[in-house]
């Protein structure tokens, strides 16, 4: 049950007061006693009217009627929450803009109370401070600013409208709400817009408005400070020596006004604690928390911040560590030594001479499944390759970016034909392909031209060749650098995205989700309009009215018993 214009305490007072009134009336009820007299002929003419036995009957008497009317009027006035206006100044048009964004669902100073609850209390207090002749409108700002209480609606409904507001799951758009508020009061004097929000960075639009319009914009901050620590990225970096283990790095960014302590917990989803660390972070800083020697076993990991923030949603991240089995490479023992050396450079690579399942076939062609089984083939039939020193990495191969083959030459041999469907050239000599991969998921093959292993060739002796082999194998085995980032839907809920975008390793927020151009610095707070120019109003205490009603009822009862009124 929702009371309009009445608090639960007042309702309780009404109930208790009514019970007290009934009790008093019961005590003071009229008790007539019978008395025999010698004659009633004189009393019959002396009594103007017989005593009223019903409430309506008692209305006949003007004084009784007046008292009862006064009681009813006072009760009605009390329920309407009257205010005594001490200043009969000009009418003020006030628009309360209530921030109901996601960050308002965070706890406020009082335990168990959210920032939105605190904002509601402030809004209700402001409503009660208004003069009766002032006009009031209420706008809720979440992604879609909307009017929830029009200025021509009864004032008593404003409280109910505020109490019905629920926090949204998305950030608010205060600037548009202020624009709407200003438009509501166009053409009127004494305009005032009150923004109740937890934003630390007041929209500069407020300043723009006050610069062009005669509007007083007052910003009321709710909550401690809207600072926020968030997990912005996480990545797994395998060790070079032990490719099956690595280091998990969780990047935490903090935006705020003061330094604060940020504690992070990393654990497996099964509950095993991997790390618990607290760090005092400076304002607007980034810190990487690292979990060392973590097995790349594909387990689900949970990283969470043990702190309250403006956005609770970004305090936890669930990610999977990469699954890292050995990279099995099927390689004939007759392959060139330089290639074998290059293959063994990567600790993750295991050369398979025979099939680990059947022990016979060299390259598992009998449908035995070896995970990450990659074949290496040296092409000796194909277009001829002439000695050349112009070796270069094929364009578009990201995992080979930066390899330098300057000074390396290849010998004579057959070039790699670009026949498979998923063939990707890796190394070119002019227009001739010297190395390429067939990225068939079931049976990836790395092709090398025989010209690379010719006696005259020097390329296979270059470190770049080993890197080419290792990066290619890792690419085919799925050994890309494993990283995790906040999903875009979480970033949408972050009111501090404008600053975070620069800190996150992968900016995945949807473009246009927040117009950063409208969010400016702290200096945009409209300090010039924080002067108090409110009308002084005195709320008439509801309890006093009730006491007056009680006194009137008592007076009526006493007068009735004493015979002053029938």
């Amino acid at each position, binding site marked *: 049950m929702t009371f309009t214009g009445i608090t639960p305490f007042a309702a309780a007072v009404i109930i208790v007061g009514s019970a007290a009134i009934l009790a008093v009336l019961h005590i003071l009820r*009229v*008790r*007539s*006693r*019978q*008395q*025999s*007299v*010698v*004659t*009633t*002929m*004189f*009393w*019959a*003419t*002396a*009594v*103007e009217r*017989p*005593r009223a036995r019903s409430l309506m009957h008692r209305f006949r008497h003007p004084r009784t009627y007046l008292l009862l009317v006064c009681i009813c009027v006072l009760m009605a006035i009390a329920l309407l929450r009257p205010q005594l206006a001490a200043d009969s100044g000009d009418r003020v048009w006030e628009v309360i803009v209530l921030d109901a964004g996601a960050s308002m669902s965070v706890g406020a100073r009082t335990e168990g109370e959210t920032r939105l609850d605190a904002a509601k209390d402030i809004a209700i207090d402001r409503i009660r401070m208004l003069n009766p002749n002032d006009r009031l409108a209420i706008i809720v700002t979440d992604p879609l600013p909307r009017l929830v209480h029009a200025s021509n609606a009864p004032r008593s409904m404003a409280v109910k409208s505020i109490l019905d507001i629920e926090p949204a799951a998305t950030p608010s758009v205060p600037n548009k709400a202020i624009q709407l508020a200003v438009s509501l009061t166009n053409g009127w004097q004494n305009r005032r817009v009150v923004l109740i929000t937890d934003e630390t960075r007041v929209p500069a639009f407020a300043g723009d408005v006050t610069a062009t319009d005669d509007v007083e914009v007052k910003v009321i901050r709710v909550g401690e400070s809207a600072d926020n620590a968030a997990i912005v990225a996480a990545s797994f970096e395998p060790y070079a020596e032990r490719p099956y283990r690595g280091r998990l790095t969780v990047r935490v960014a903090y935006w705020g006004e003061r330094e604060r302590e940020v504690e992070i917990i990393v654990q497996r989803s099964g509950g095993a604690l991997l790390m618990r660390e607290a760090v005092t972070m400076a304002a607007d800083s980034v810190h990487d928390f690292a979990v060392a020697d973590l097995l790349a076993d594909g387990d689900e990991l949970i990283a969470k911040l043990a702190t309250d923030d403006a956005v609770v949603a970004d305090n936890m991240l669930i990610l999977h560590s990469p699954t890292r089995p050995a990279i099995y490479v099927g390689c004939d023992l007759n392959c060139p030594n330089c290639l074998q050396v290059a293959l063994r450079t990567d600790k993750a690579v295991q050369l398979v001479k025979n099939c680990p399942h059947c022990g016979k076939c060299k390259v598992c062609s009998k449908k035995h499944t070896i995970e990450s089984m990659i074949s290496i083939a040296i092409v000796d039939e194909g277009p001829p390759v002439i000695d050349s020193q112009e070796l270069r990495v094929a364009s578009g191969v990201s995992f080979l970016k930066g390899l330098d083959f300057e000074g390396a030459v290849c010998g004579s041999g057959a070039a790699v034909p670009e026949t498979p469907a998923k063939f990707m050239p890796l190394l070119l000599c002019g227009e001739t392909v010297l190395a390429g991969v067939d990225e068939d998921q079931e049976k990836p093959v790395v092709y090398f031209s025989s010209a690379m292993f010719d006696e005259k060739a020097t390329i296979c002796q270059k470190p770049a060749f080993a890197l080419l082999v290792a990066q290619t194998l890792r690419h085919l085995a799925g050994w890309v650098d494993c990283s995790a980032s906040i999903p875009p839907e979480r970033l949408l809920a972050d009111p501090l995205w404008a600053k975070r975008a620069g800190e996150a390793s992968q900016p995945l927020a949807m473009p246009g989700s927040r117009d950063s151009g409208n969010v400016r610095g702290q200096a945009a707070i409209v300090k010039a309009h924080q002067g108090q120019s409110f009308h002084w109003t005195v709320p008439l205490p509801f309890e006093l009215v009730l006491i007056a009603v009680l006194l009137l009822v008592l007076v009526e009862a006493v007068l009735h*018993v*004493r*015979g*002053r009124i*029938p």
Partner: protein
Amino acid sequence: MGQLFTREFIQAIRSLRIVSRQVPAGGKSAEHRSKDMGSGMEFRDFRAYVPGDDLRRADWNLYRRSGRLFLRMFDEPEDLPVYILADMSDSMFFEAPPRADVARLMTAAVAAISLNQHDRTGIFPFGSDLVRPMRPLSGKHNLPRVLRYLEQLRPAGKTDIVRVVRKFRAMGLRRGLVVFVSDFFDGQGIDVITNALKSLRHSLLLIQIARESDASPDLDGELTLLDCESGDAIDLTVTPEAVARYRRSYDDFCNGLLAFAARRRAAHVRLDADRPLLTQLGDVFPDGVLIT
């Protein structure tokens, strides 16, 4: 002698007299001066002789001086029929001391005086109707009988003066003095009462039995008043204003009775039921005589 009628009371009323200014003619010889000229001892007037007059009453000395024949007229003392209508309604027995005591004492006093004056005296107690009236008697030897009769009177219901007067009038009694002893508390109102009394052809002596509380009732608060006769209930908040209105109503009642008595040339006596009658006899019979 009963408890009510003491010897002192009997002694006290022995010397009292009732003198009526209008004694109807046709009565038997008694002590009241009537309009009839008769064989009394006291000369009243002369009148011219007309044939047929008794020549024994002719004044021959006057005839000798004037040559004309006149008769000497003398008073003829006659009796005065006294009818006492005593109110024995419930209201007369309600409070303590009951008004009926004073009423019976006053009735006894009037009866005793009348009997002493050789008047025929009848007692007609009433309530809602006449109750076993005592037919007119004469002779003071009947006083004990009268007293015994009064002693055994009991409450007789609700007062209905109109009905009582109508019945009394229907008796066709000889004109005389009607002594009406009552509190006159008849719910029909004083106007109805006086209209009924006005219809009587008799001389009237109204004896009103009252008490101080009639004018100033000692009531307060929320009351349901029950009429002792009719049982009617009135819900009432006794306030100073209500008491004032009551007093005005009561005064109107009393004034109405007095005004009627004045118009009717009837005597009116008010007795206080709370005071002994012996102490009030001096007021009722100034110099021992009550002139009606």
